[in-house]
């Protein structure tokens, strides 16, 4: 009956139920709810928190204490709302009223979260959801209603029900039905509660039974239909009474529990059937019509109805407009949003572009960064490479040049600076002001150092030169003729050649100046030394021609001893014409050689002393301690009082000077490192070899024209005195003893050969000039000889051996001796040509003199005698002296001699046997023309004539004639040089006599066999006469 009691309270609630409206509006309306939930029902409860705890604690004793605590703890009014979502899910919400009209959902549970429901008493019930809740509702009826509905919902939605404690379902159902009845009967305004629900169909409206349960069922069915929209509606859908929720459980419980309900529903069903039939009728459908067709039609109808219904609902509802408007608004907003999105997209696109651009810029920046980093590295490297540590600059500025280690340090420092200054940079790099500045700075330091270096070297050079110039120790004396050389200076300066290499690279001008300075200073020394050398040599050690030398045609003997022999006139005449000096001595070979030089006593012949430098006595230098290491090879090998032949002295001097000059050139080349282009660094790393000994070697030419010219120029300055001195020497020697030009010439040529393939351009030039001069002298000399011979034709005596003939063999011998071992020199050709010229003119002159001789009684025989004597002398002398190379002339001379001798002999014999010879010549002529028998018949050559001729030459006459003839011949061959010729000639005469005698006898026998005539003097008599004459002399 409590339910009745609450009917009143429930009625107003059902009528307008402001709480429900408020709840819906606040939480579950379309606009306010974002959950899409529809509220099914609600219940107001008071939550008893403490109680619930106690309940939990005390368990079953809650019945008593529960009521006691109730009033005390009813503190929290809440609403439990049951809602259904769009997808059919049912949830419970615990809602708190926050103000008059606003609500707040405190908690939300799904149905399956409910663990148990316990009915405590009429108003109180406990629910365990996550934790136990103890709720008290105002009205037991409402509580029961709610529980009923909850159970229903639970059954229809959950497979497993939560634990139900103390819940009497049938009782609940009864209560519920009672309540519903009461509602149906008492309350008509119940429809209001249903009104907002849009799910009313035609049947429901027609039914007009707005019961709460129906309403609830209906709402459930709508909900179920929504859930199963795809499922074709069953026929049961038409049955409004049938709950769609009557599933297996629901369906089972309701027929069991609701028999009363069924009864209540029957009239309603009847009405519905009637309506259906009417309806069917109206629709002109026969009952017997096909059910299927009917169903189809009905379905169609239903569909169109639903459509219409939807339209009508839409049209009927004002809110639709709102909704439409809202939708339009929404669409607009969507459009807006679309625009915004479009813009946004554009924005994004452009941002994307920006990002890409930024990325590429970034990459660019990275590249730039790495470039800059590498640039930085490059610059650092550059800076390192162009930066020279200060200590190096300091070294360049301050380090001493005096000491060797200082020089080494300076070389290193200079190399360092040079490396930097000479390294090639790109134009860009070189253009950098930092680089430029550095370079300028270093160039400044370099030029300072170059200045310091060249000043230093200049000072040193001058000082050293001065020191040696005033060195009293270095004086020459008799027997001490030496070139000292300047090894100490050389050694001193070679220390600096590294720096000189540097100077050449860094300051070519100072380098050139230094070269000039060096050679000029050295020249002061050498000029003085060379001058002294030659002056001492010439003054003290060259044999003056106060000695006889008849190896020259011009130097006709004039010694008193020779004058006696008739040379006086000629000598006096020759002095003026060929010789300037009056010192010329004459004499025989023996005298000359003994005077030519004291060394001859040792058996040495001056012109043979070619290799004296090599074989000289090393002890000879023992006396001199101030000499240099090279003194032995730079000393003229001569004793204090010894005199050398000009050519020997010249040869030694030339040899010393040329080797010294060659050495000096090698030194210059090494000191200035002329043969190689190198930087300081190269010099330090690979020092070109240098040794004092190596300077002596003759080097091959390696330089280009310009450099060798330069070197030659330097050498020319250095040895400017040498050429002059050698020329003077040659002149002096020539004046002294002209023939010496040959010896000197040969010396020069030999030296030339020594340097022919070398780089000694200076020496080669100098020697060439010297040789030209000597060749000129030689030619002049030959010319003089030539003139002398020519003149001799007119001036000399006309008998005996002519002077030039007498001299020539010695001349030739001397030439040959000079040429010995130098057969391949050009002097050989010169001399051969001179021979040719001289011998030719000699022979010519001899012939001419012979022809014009006036010194003989018989001119013809005199000429023969002159020829015989001279030719024989020429031949025999040359043969005796073993002078080769003149065979042709010797042969000619021999032939000439023999023919002249034969002619002479014949002539002499003819004089003696003139008539006999004439007669027998005639006989011989006849014999040749006719026969020997016929000769006797010839008038002139008959027997009488024969007898007459023969009778003229008795033995006594012949003896007398022969004795006379001998005296004559003896007078002819009176020249002292050719004493043997008398015998030769006399023997020839003897043989001729014998031959003629034999001839005469033979002819007598042949032509006058029967005459019985014989020569008046027999062969025995003739031989007797000859031996008689020979004995007497």
């Amino acid at each position, binding site marked *: 009956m409590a339910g009745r009691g609450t009917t009143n309270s429930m009625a107003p609630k059902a009528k307008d139920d402001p709480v429900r409206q408020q709840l819906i509006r606040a939480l579950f309306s379309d606009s306010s709810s974002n959950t899409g939930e529809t509220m099914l029902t609600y219940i107001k409860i008071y939550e008893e928190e403490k109680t619930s705890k106690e309940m939990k604690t005390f368990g079953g004793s809650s019945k008593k204490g529960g009521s006691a605590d109730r009033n005390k703890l009813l503190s929290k009014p809440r609403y439990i709302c049951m809602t259904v979502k769009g997808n059919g899910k049912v949830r419970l919400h615990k809602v708190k009223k926050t103000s008059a009209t606003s609500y707040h959902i405190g908690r939300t549970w799904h149905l399956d979260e409910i663990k148990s429901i316990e009915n405590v008493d009429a108003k109180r019930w406990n629910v365990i959801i996550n934790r136990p809740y103890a709720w008290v509702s105002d009205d037991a009826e409402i509580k029961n209603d709610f529980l009923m509905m909850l159970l229903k919902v639970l059954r229809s939605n959950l497979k497993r029900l939560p634990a139900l404690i103390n819940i009497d379902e049938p009782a609940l159902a009864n209560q519920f039905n009672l309540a519903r009845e009461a509602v149906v009967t008492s309350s008509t305004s119940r429809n209001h509660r249903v009104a907002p629900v849009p799910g009313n169909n035609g049947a429901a409206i027609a039914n007009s039974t707005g019961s709460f349960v129906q309403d609830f069922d209906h709402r459930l069915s709508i909900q179920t239909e929504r859930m199963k929209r795809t499922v074709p509606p069953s026929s049961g859908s038409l049955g409004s009474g049938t709950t769609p929720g009557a599933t297996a459980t629901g369906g089972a419980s309701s027929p069991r529990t609701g028999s009363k309900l069924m009864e209540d529903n029957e009239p309603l069903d009847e009405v519905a059937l009637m309506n259906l039939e009417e309806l069917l009728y109206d629709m002109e459908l026969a009952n017997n019509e096909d059910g299927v067709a009917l169903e189809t039609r009905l379905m169609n109808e239903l569909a169109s109805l639903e459509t219409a219904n939807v339209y009508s609902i839409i049209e009927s509802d004002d809110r639709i407009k709102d909704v439409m408007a809202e939708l339009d608004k929404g669409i607009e907003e969507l459009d807006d949003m679309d625009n915004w999105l479009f813009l946004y997209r554009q924005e994004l696109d452009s941002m994307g572009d920006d990002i890409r651009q930024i990325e590429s810029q970034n990459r660019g920046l990275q590249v730039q960064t790495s470039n800059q980093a590498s640039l930085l590295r490059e610059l650092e490297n550059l800076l390192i490479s162009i930066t020279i540590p200060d200590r190096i600059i300091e070294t360049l500025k301050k380090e001493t040049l005096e000491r060797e280690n200082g020089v080494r340090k300076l070389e290193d420092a200079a190399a360092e600076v040079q490396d930097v200054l000479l390294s*090639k940079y790109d*134009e860009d790099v070189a253009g950098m002001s930092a680089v430029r500045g550095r370079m300028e700075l270093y160039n400044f330091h370099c030029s300072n150092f170059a200045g310091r270096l060249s000043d230093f070297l200049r000072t040193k050079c001058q000082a050293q030169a001065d020191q040696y110039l005033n060195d009293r120790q270095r004086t020459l004396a008799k027997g001490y003729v030496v070139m000292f050389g300047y090894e100490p200076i050389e050694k001193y300066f070679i220390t600096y050649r590294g720096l000189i290499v540097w100077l*050449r690279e860094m300051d*070519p*001008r100072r*380098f*050139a100046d230094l070269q000039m300075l060096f050679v000029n200073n050295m020249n002061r020394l050498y000029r003085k030394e060379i001058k002294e050398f030659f002056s001492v040599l010439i003054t003290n050690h060259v044999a003056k021609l106060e000695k006889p030398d008849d190896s020259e045609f011009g130097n006709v003997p004039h010694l008193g001893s020779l004058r006696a022999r008739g040379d006086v006139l000629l000598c006096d005449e020759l002095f003026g014409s060929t010789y300037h000096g009056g010192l010329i001595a004459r004499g025989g070979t023996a005298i000359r050689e003994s005077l030519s030089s004291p060394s001859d006593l040792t058996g040495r012949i001056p012109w043979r002393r070619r290799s004296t430098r090599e074989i000289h006595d090393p002890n000879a230098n023992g006396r001199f301690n101030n000499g240099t290491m090279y003194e032995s090879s730079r000393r003229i090998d001569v004793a204090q009082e010894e005199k050398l032949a000009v050519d020997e002295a010249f040869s030694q001097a030339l040899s010393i000077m040329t080797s010294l000059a060659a050495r000096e050139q090698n030194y210059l080349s090494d000191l200035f490192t*002329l043969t190689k*282009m190198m930087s300081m660094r190269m010099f330090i790393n690979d020092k070109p070899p240098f040794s004092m000994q190596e300077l002596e070697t003759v080097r091959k030419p390696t330089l*280009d*024209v*310009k*450099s060798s*010219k*330069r070197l030659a120029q330097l050498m020319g300055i250095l040895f400017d005195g040498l050429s002059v001195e050698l020329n003077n020497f040659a002149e002096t020697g020539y004046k002294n003893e002209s023939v010496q030009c040959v010896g000197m010439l040969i010396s020069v040529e030999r030296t030339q050969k020594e340097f022919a393939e070398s780089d000694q351009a200076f020496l080669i030039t100098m020697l060439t000039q010297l040789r030209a001069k000597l060749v000129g002298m030689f030619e002049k000399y030959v010319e003089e000889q030539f003139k002398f011979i020519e003149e001799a034709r007119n001036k000399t005596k006309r008998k005996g051996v002519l002077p030039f003939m007498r001299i020539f063999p010695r001349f030739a011998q001397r030439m040959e001796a000079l040429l010995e071992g130098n057969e391949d020199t050009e002097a050989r050709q010169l001399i051969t040509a001179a021979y040719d010229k001289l011998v030719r003119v000699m022979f010519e002159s001899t012939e001419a003199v012979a022809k014009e001789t006036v010194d003989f009684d018989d001119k013809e025989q005199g000429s023969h005698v002159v020829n015989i004597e001279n030719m024989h002398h020429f031949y025999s002398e040359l043969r005796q002296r073993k002078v080769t190379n003149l065979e042709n002339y010797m042969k000619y001379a021999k032939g000439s001699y023999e023919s002249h001798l034969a002619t002479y002999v014949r002539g002499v014999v003819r004089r003696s046997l003139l008539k006999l010879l004439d007669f027998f010549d005639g006989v011989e002529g006849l014999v040749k023309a006719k026969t020997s028998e016929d000769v006797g018949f010839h008038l002139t050559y008959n027997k009488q004539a024969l007898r007459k001729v023969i009778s003229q030459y008795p033995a006594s006459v012949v003896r007398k004639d022969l004795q006379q003839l001998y005296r004559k011949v003896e007078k002819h061959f009176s020249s002292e040089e050719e004493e043997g010729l008398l015998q030769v000639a006399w023997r020839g005469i003897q043989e001729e006599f014998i031959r003629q005698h034999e001839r005469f006898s033979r002819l007598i026998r042949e032509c006058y066999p029967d005459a019985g005539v014989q020569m008046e003097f027999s062969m025995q008599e003739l031989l007797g006469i000859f031996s008689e004459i020979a004995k007497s002399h």
Partner: protein
Amino acid sequence: MREYKLVVLGSGGVGKSALTVQFVQSMFVDRYDPTIEDSYRKQVEVDGLQCMLEILDTAGTEQFTAMRDLYMKNGQGFILVFSIIASATFDELTEIHGQLLRTKDTRTVPIVLVGNKCDMANERNVSQERAKAQADKWNTPFYETSARTRINVDEVFHDLVRMINLQNPAKHDKSKKNTVKCVLL
């Protein structure tokens, strides 16, 4: 044999001596030794004729340039040398060329313009076009040479000899003078 007096002019260090020595001796002078004055003689055959060239290698560095006037008076043909790697040396030739024309007082002096060191083309500072333009302006032939690698060395000297021959044919000197005299009369 006809003799030709050739003069090599140009700034210091352009390679006048190197060029001359290379021509005379076929040897490259790799060291720098400032020339004061050097003369070389060499007999060559140009167009089948034997010629004796007397080549005067002059000083490029300014200290020694006082003699220039004299060289110019005595020389018959001139080689103006610059270095392609130093444009200043090219510019300085303008002055030398001017001096040459003033000294010779004629417009047709046999001249060859030479850009030396063409083996160092990677350090080039004077373009061929620029030099060629100058040569055209002066109406002279232009050669790029390398004394180091002997490029165009003979050509320069031979061409100069030809120019002298062309301007001053050896055998017709007198007859030409005579005709000129006649015209004047």
